[in-house]
């Protein structure tokens, strides 16, 4: 990402989600993406919620910057991606975190943390429409 990338580290605790969203809104405004602040907040909120619920990480790093004319956000934890899929037919849960975050942005990337290379990375790209 460009020079103007800002990174903030959050504790992996659900109480930080409101802070995460404020951070995303402030950065979106700084980078002239206020129109997309809500969608970016929701995408990053879901990625952080997943790190909190599933990764056993202690902290989460959120980086926001511009790449060309687009805003790029990275959400990184230090955990291992849980490969075992849920069985929604039986658990009766919605599991809509990943579908929802993907729908909020133009491009969604997931790099699964593994035992050999810990740390799940979720990356969002949002461009002006």
């Amino acid at each position: 990402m460009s020079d103007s990338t800002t990174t903030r580290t959050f504790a992996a605790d659900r109480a930080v989600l409101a802070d995460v969203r404020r951070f995303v809104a402030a950065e979106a405004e700084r980078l002239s993406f206020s129109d997309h602040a809500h969608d970016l907040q929701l995408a990053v909120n879901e990625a952080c919620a997943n790190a909190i619920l599933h990764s056993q990480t202690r902290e989460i790093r959120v980086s926001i910057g511009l790449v060309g004319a687009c805003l790029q956000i990275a959400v990184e934890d230090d955990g291992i991606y849980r490969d075992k899929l849920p069985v929604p037919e039986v658990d009766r849960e919605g599991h809509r975190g990943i579908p929802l975050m993907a729908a909020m942005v133009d491009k969604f990337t997931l790099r699964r943390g593994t035992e050999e290379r810990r740390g799940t990375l979720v990356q969002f790209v949002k461009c002006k429409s």
Partner: protein
Amino acid sequence: MSEGFRIEPLDGDGVRLIGELDLASYDEAAHQLSRLLESDGDVTLDISELSFVDSSGIRLFIRLHLALEGRGTLTLRSPTPQVARILRMSGVADVGIGVEESGQ
């Protein structure tokens, strides 16, 4: 409860959700709203002052709807445009939850 979320009784009937409904406020919200299910009939939530809802909030609305088991209808009244969009995208209206946007 998360400082950013609370539920207030309305003058007439029903309650108003205020603030941000997310993974942090989910448990408390679910606890308080489950009491609305005790009385038979429809449940209406005024969400005009709900400024943010995430997948936990969607999950809560769908659980309330399923818990009603057809004994009544769950209606979400007066969402902000952003919340209305997330509700639409999440398909909640398609499964029988009433979403009354302002002006309707």
